[in-house]
């Protein structure tokens, strides 16, 4: 595979060849286990709108943050990016390959987690398979936007993990609840708008519309990939003497 799709294979090996994969699998399993245990005990604790808290607000940004910052950030940190940059390869190709792999892994994990959570909830007789699928697909798309954003951050700073976490916790969490305008720059709100639409819940009163959600996610992806490409094409190797 490394000869046919070198950048994809390299990124995949880099992301999967570490303990983080097991950590991410465990993280994705948390909502499934919680809901499954409650449903097994006969409690109908989950409704469709609870996928906001179970998946979109918690598990999705964390998985995207880890994969998104590691895909390019670890290469920049360890210095191995030199082997990619000293090749006659367009920088956009490097960024797109890395975003695709990290986003693909995030999307696969989060979709499986959401769907399994819906199935687990159904054990108590409350059919949430449709909600699980809807929020799973929306989260997969949101995952692409998050990964693109976090990967772009890692191209600009070595503190991408901390800044990404601050974006999720402070911007989307705290400010998103207080200031309506910040929702236009929130991957979480855009993902929720899509999930609610596909789950048949309709838009929430304060939230974004379905169309707004689609446009915002697309903008996040395009702008973040462009910024990361711009940065990588001007990347300068410092250090040494």
């Amino acid at each position, binding site marked *: 595979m*490394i*000869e*046919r799709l*070198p*950048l994809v294979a*390299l990124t995949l*090996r*880099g992301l999967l*060849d570490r303990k983080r994969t097991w950590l991410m699998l465990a993280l994705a399993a948390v909502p499934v286990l919680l809901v499954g245990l409650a449903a097994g005990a006969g409690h109908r604790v989950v409704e469709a709108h609870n996928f906001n808290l179970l998946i979109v607000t918690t598990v999705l940004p964390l998985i995207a943050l880890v994969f998104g910052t590691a895909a390019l950030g670890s290469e920049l940190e*360890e*210095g*191995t990016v*030199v*082997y*990619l*940059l*000293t*090749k*006659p*390869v*367009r*920088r956009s190709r490097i960024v797109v390959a890395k975003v695709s792999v990290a986003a693909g892994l995030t999307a696969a994990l989060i979709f499986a987690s959401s769907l399994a959570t819906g199935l687990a909830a159904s054990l108590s007789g409350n059919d949430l398979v449709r909600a699980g699928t809807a929020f799973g697909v929306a989260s997969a798309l949101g995952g692409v936007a998050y990964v693109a954003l976090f990967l772009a951050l890692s191209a600009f700073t070595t503190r991408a993990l901390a800044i990404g976490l601050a974006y999720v916790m402070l911007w989307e969490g705290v400010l998103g609840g207080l200031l309506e305008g910040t929702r236009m720059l929130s991957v979480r709100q855009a993902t929720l708008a899509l999930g609610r639409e596909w789950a048949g819940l309709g838009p929430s009163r304060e939230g974004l519309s379905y169309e707004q959600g689609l446009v915002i996610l697309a903008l996040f992806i395009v702008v973040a990939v462009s910024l990361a490409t711009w940065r990588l*094409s*001007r*990347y*300068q*190797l*410092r*250090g*040494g*003497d």
Partner: protein
Amino acid sequence: MTVNGGSRIILDHVSRWYGNVVAVNDISFEVAPGITGLLGPNGAGKSTLLHMIAGLLQPSAGVVEVDGAPTWRRPQVYRQVGLVPERESVYPYLTGREFVALNASLHGLPLREAAISRALERVELAPAADRRVGTYSKGMRQRIKLAGALVHDPPVLVLDEPFNGMDPRQRLQMFELLRTMANEGRTVLLSSHILEEVERLADSVLVVYAGRLAAAGDFRSIRRLMTDRPHVFSVRSSDDRRLGALLLAEDPVFGVELDASGLRVRTSDFGAFTRLLPMVLQSSGIRLLELRPTDDSLESVFAYLVGR
């Protein structure tokens, strides 16, 4: 195997600074086919120069060109250039063969398998090619980096401290390999802070110190400059005062200081002084207790060349 071209690296009044710190100061030189050593102590600006040549660092002023084309923000230059970076990091989860295959694929080489096998054989890593790079020794990692850099058969090879971490046998193998590549017509530029490495390998030398080009040319003339510079010796004897007076009367000695620790003798001619001292000692009957060059570090040699 011969390489087409006879590629040249040209630096024209190149400077690089970081804020107020000047890492490279108005350097111009040309590197022709063959092996050129970039010599200087740690912190002299060698890596900064190599990074600019490899298109990984923008010059603050001046022009860096390979075969007449600037290297900065021009990925096409990597068809001509192979870089072996100083940092040891190589993807630890790839095997040696996969690492070379990655390089070959990113270059879009046709007949990739043959190129990969050839590169692995050249660095004598074919038997270990299917082991993960994470299990390699330092020397093996240097060699797999070289295999990755030459898999596309570039006419220009840039190597940053390539002998770091290698044992003597591996060094000799690497010397041999680099000589072969130079004989094929390649332009090989390598950096080192070890004089003997460059002396044994390079046809010509560029000496950098404190960001400036201290000397450039063939190794013998630079070696002569280094040897002929003023030297200071610390001498202790059975009669320092008398020995000082006798030495000061001789031509190669132009200064003598006497203090509690003994004599400090300044000479303009290293060779003449080493012949003179035994004769003076023998004729005067003074016994020599200690003779020590006080400024023989490479650092002082470079400082002298810059100040010339």
